[in-house]
C-alpha cells in the first residue's frame, strides 16, 4: 500500500486548505505539510479534478448525481470525495489501491469534522474575505489535533 499525498480543497473552488506530501517511503515523517512549494501542484490537481468532474457530470445528463470517485493515470491514482457542502478530499496513491473511499470518508467524518468543524476556534471558512476566494486563498488548516490525527491515520499507509 502506498499513499503519495493528501489534499483538501474548500468550497471556494481551488483554495487548497491542506496538503501533505510524502516523499520517502521509508520515512513516514518525510515530505512536506502545507508547503508553499505545492501551490502549483495543488492548482493543477484541482484543475484536473474539476474538469473531469464537470465533464462526467455533463455526460450523465442533467439532474442526476454523478460524482467522480477515482482518476487513474499511468503512475498514480487519485481518489476523490466531494461533499455536498463543497469540500473536496483528494488522496493520491499507487495503482494497487482500487478504492480508498472508506479512507476518505474516515478522514472527513472522523478527523476533519471532529478536529476542525467541532473546534469553535478553528474557522469553518478559510477564506476570510472575498479576495481570498476563487483559488486566491492562502490559509491552511494548522490545527495541531488535525495534523496529528492525519499523521496517525495515514502514516502507516504510506508504505
Amino acid at each position, binding site marked *: 500500500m502506498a499513499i503519495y499525498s493528501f489534499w483538501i480543497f474548500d*468550497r471556494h*473552488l481551488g483554495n487548497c486548505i491542506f496538503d501533505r506530501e510524502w516523499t520517502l517511503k521509508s520515512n513516514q515523517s518525510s515530505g512536506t505539510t502545507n508547503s508553499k512549494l505545492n501551490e502549483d501542484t495543488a492548482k493543477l490537481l484541482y484543475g484536473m479534478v474539476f474538469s473531469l468532474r464537470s465533464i462526467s457530470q455533463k455526460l450523465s445528463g442533467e439532474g442526476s448525481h454523478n460524482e467522480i470517485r477515482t482518476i487513474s493515470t499511468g503512475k498514480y491514482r487519485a481518489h476523490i470525495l466531494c461533499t455536498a457542502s463543497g469540500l473536496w478530499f483528494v488522496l493520491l496513491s499507487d495503482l494497487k489501491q482500487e478504492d480508498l473511499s472508506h479512507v476518505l470518508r474516515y478522514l472527513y467524518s472522523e478527523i476533519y469534522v471532529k478536529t476542525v468543524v467541532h473546534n469553535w476556534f478553528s474557522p469553518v471558512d478559510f477564506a476570510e474575505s472575498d479576495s481570498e476566494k476563487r483559488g486566491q486563498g492562502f490559509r491552511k488548516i494548522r490545527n495541531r489535533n488535525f495534523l496529528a490525527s492525519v499523521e496517525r491515520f495515514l502514516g502507516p499507509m504510506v508504505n
Partner: protein
Amino acid sequence: MSANSASISASSAGPKKSLKTFGDDIWKNKTAKINAELFTLTYGSIVSQLCTDFERDFKKVNSQLYAMGYNIGVRLIEDFLARTALPRCDSLAQTSEVISKCAFKIFLNVTPQVGNWSNNKDAFSLFLDENPLSDFVELPMDAAKELWYSNILCGVLRGALEMVQMDCDVWFVNDVLRGGQSTEMRVKLNRIMKDEIPAGED
C-alpha cells in the same frame, strides 16, 4: 462505509419511507445522547441571560439567537453530511423531507410535519409538535409578544442550507409559547447559489 451503503439504499428505495428509517437508524446507532433536561436548561439559561444582557430588548435577543444559530448551522451541516453521506437534493420538496426526517430526527429526535407549501413551491412550513428546546418554558408577559424563544433553530437552518448552496430565509410564524395553536417555522428558498467557478471557466 456503512453510511455510504445506507445512503445508497436511501436513494434507491422509495424516498419517503427510507429517509425516515434512515434517520431513525442514525439517531439510534450513530448519535451520542445527552440528558434532555441538561440540554433544555442549557439553552434556557442562554436565552434568559441574553434577555438580561440586552435589557429585555427582545428584537435584539431574536437576532442574537439567530446569529448564534447561523454559526452553529455552518458547522453542523458538515457533521450532518459526515453522518449521512447524503448528496445534494434535487428539489426543495426533497430538502424539506431531509430536514424533517433526517436533520431534526438526528439532532433533536423530533420529526416536524412539513406542510403549507406556497403555490410556486418555493416555501414551506415545518410544524413542530414538540420542541425539546422549550420544555418547561413559560414566557414572561413582556416577552410573549416579541421573543421567538427557539429562534436559534432558524439560524441553524439558514446557515446549514447556505452551505449546500441554498439561499433561504427562515423565520418563526407561530409558537405555542406565545399562545399560538402550533409551533410553525417557515422556510423560503430565495435562490440556489451557483458554486464558484474558477477564473476562465463558464
